[in-house]
């Protein structure tokens, strides 16, 4: 539903191609788009205002490099400024104190405090090998303490036994004592959700902080938060000394502009992001990824990293050799599908790609089992059929359909897709191989990527779209199909 900033700027700068420098008027026009993009990403207005002013000053008079379009260059300036503002990554928790180190979690109702507490406890216990105790001080929401106890069991982290009717400050004292006596290294205090305007609850939070003198006080914020982020950040940091922010629900499709607001208003680092409901989905914060996301550029860095991890080098090389000869049989296609699946399936890929408007639509209506089913079809062919798909006559197709639990139509679609992919491969070969193909991506929606990813960061076999993963179709790579689904795949998806 959002246009990516690159798309927006594309139209602003169309007339600017080939000019030497960005003049002030051009930059201001671009910054109006940047402003709307940031607002749509839910960055708080005061933060947007000062950010835009700052970036305008930086961007005026910048030389337009010949290799990139002005739009991309502005995107890069904006992106760099965002990363800078979002702060250093890997700000770990300060736990090297006389035990127990106390970590207090605060935030609005429904921001994800309890789940985050359990995730963090597990992370500290597993990765840092410290003994962790969790205690819930939430006496307001029904069954909140019970919830933490259940999560504690799942995470295999100790929780403070619940004493019904005990008030938060007393629970905090009891937890502190229990942690001391039982030799826990870290004590996590999960507090009740509260609104900044709720005076009684805000002073209760201050009282808990006074009683437990936490070494870390983490503000838990929902990545979906809108303009209210400023008020939240302000009201909490006025009452307790925050040491950092945890951003939850980053697995949703929100742009996460709240990250920027939080950072700007509290001045505290974002330490972790929650990326799923499972107990291990808590990750260190990467400013450059969130910056890309706020601008609607997709999480290219993560994608490239994941591609590098999952694509086995040997396989990629064997594939490259084969493609160089111009052959592309069913086994090769299967290898491609498997790679896509290892990278988290189509949905996960789509979520990370830049300029994903078109493909997201296709992926949304897609059966997540599709890749598995296509794999099954290929698995039901004989070795000979896989090497020479043209052998597949009607009877063989019926057999394969039966064997793979699909229909003949499915088999036909797959064969057609293979034909198109093989055709595309031939064209690639004619055009001078994969190296040229990778260069071609630069013209398309992935252009911004070149500016963002250091040259060495991409796997040797090219972009994930090239040798490693999905063969792009020549021509389509440049025009409006930044997510290079194999040709024909979209047709299958529509069935």
């Amino acid at each position, binding site marked *: 539903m959002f246009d990516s900033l690159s798309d927006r700027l594309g139209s602003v700068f169309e007339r600017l191609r080939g000019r030497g420098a960005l003049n002030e008027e051009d930059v201001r026009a671009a910054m109006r788009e940047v402003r709307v993009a940031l607002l749509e990403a839910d960055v708080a207005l005061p933060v947007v205002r000062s950010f835009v002013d700052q970036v305008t000053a930086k961007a005026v008079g910048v030389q337009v490099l010949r290799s990139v379009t002005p739009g991309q260059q502005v995107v890069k300036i904006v992106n760099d400024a965002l990363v800078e503002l979002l702060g250093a990554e890997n700000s770990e928790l300060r736990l090297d104190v006389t035990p127990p180190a106390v970590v207090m979690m605060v935030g609005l109702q429904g921001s994800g405090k309890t789940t985050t507490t359990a995730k963090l406890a597990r992370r500290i216990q597993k990765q840092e090998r410290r003994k962790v105790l969790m205690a819930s001080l939430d006496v307001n929401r029904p069954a909140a303490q019970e919830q*933490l106890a259940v999560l504690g069991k799942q995470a295999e982290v100790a929780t403070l036994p619940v004493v019904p009717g005990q008030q938060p400050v007393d629970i905090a004292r009891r937890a502190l004592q229990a942690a001391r006596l039982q030799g826990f290294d870290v004590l996590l205090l999960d507090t009740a959700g509260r609104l900044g305007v709720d005076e009684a609850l805000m002073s209760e939070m201050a009282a808990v902080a006074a009683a437990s003198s936490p070494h870390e006080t983490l503000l838990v914020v929902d990545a*979906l938060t809108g303009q209210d982020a400023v008020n939240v950040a302000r009201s909490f940091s006025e009452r307790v000394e925050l040491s950092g922010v945890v951003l939850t629900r980053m697995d949703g499709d929100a742009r996460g502009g709240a990250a920027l607001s939080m950072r700007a208003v509290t001045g505290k680092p974002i330490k972790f992001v929650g990326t799923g409901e499972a107990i291990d989905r808590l990750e260190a914060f990467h400013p450059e990824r969130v910056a890309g996301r706020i601008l609607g550029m997709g999480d290219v860095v993560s994608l490239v990293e994941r591609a590098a991890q999952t694509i086995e080098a040997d396989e990629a090389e064997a594939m490259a050799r084969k493609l160089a000869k111009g052959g592309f049989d069913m086994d090769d296609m299967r290898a491609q599908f498997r790679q896509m699946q290892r990278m988290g399936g189509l949905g996960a890929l789509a979520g990370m790609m830049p300029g994903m408007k078109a493909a997201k639509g296709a992926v949304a209506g897609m059966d997540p089992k599709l890749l598995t089913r296509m794999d099954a079809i290929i698995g039901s062919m004989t070795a000979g059929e896989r090497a020479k798909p043209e052998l597949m006559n009607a009877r063989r197709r019926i057999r394969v359909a039966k064997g793979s639990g699909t229909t003949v139509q499915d088999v036909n679609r797959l064969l057609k897709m293979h034909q198109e992919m093989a055709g595309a491969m031939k064209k690639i070969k004619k055009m001078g191989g994969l190296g040229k193909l990778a260069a071609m991506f630069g013209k398309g929606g992935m252009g911004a990527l070149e500016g963002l990813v250091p040259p060495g960061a991409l796997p040797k076999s090219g972009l994930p779209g090239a040798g490693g993963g999905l063969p792009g179709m020549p021509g389509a790579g440049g025009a409006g199909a930044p997510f290079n689904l194999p040709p024909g795949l979209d047709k299958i998806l529509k069935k």
Partner: protein
Amino acid sequence: MTDQPWLQRLSGGFRRTSDRLGGDLAGLFTRAALDEETLDAVEEALIAADLGPAAAGRIREQLAAARFERGLSREAVLGVAADEIERILRPVAIPLEIEAFPRPQVLLVIGVNGSGKTTTIAKLAHLLVEQDYGVLLAAGDTFRAAAIGQLQVWADRAGVPLIAGKEGADAAGIVYDGVKRATAEGIDALIVDTAGRLQNKQGLMDELAKIRRVLGRLNPASPHNVILVLDATNGQNALAQVEVFKDTAGVNGLVMTKLDGTARGGVLVAAAEKYGLPIHAIGVGEGIDDLRPFDPRATARAIVGLPPEEA
């Protein structure tokens, strides 16, 4: 319910919204003319209320057009803004009616995690009980730890029965049992809690589809209401939530929660403009009677910071 007049209670829910927005706007109109700069500032104030760039832009245009006819008094300018907001909200202010026959009317309550589904269900149950309807709750959130316990506490407070299974059980099965029991006992409304889900999670959206299928088999008309609970503190992503849940879960009504904080919930205006889904009620607190009917006129005036009109 308290004896406070209801218009005043409604505007109480929006008071902070209006204080802020009114404060912002009032600051603007002590100046001389509605020049571009002022209009920009109005637009930004509306954006800061989470109205979204499009809705804010339209209201800005209304203001730009209206200044010659209306003069420049603060009330007049605010009135135009309020009129425009009201015009957008008016068609979607549709209260929840319990009228299904055969009974029960099934209300499926969905939303992203932490939006306030369970609390809203409790408030809804309380409201319906006060209107003399028989209510049964079904604990369809079998995923989150202790969600069933939380709903049980609320069911006890509202004095309504609850049907629940084990944690990790099949939500559709519990819903099935709920309909059977409600039918047998002649209960008017079955309110189904569901696990919180981000709208981009295919697996959980499939589960929702299954619940719908099971319900549809028992009675083709059910679920009668699919209510999306929106968190006022959510920004523009609320629009994405509405869009996706509308398509995949058949949402046909909205409730907005957490309007008692500093969040302004202006995204309702954008949502009304874009999707036109009925807004049934707003949540303004953690108490069981903190659910208010949605009144567009009062809401619009409250949003721009004008006092409630005399009845």
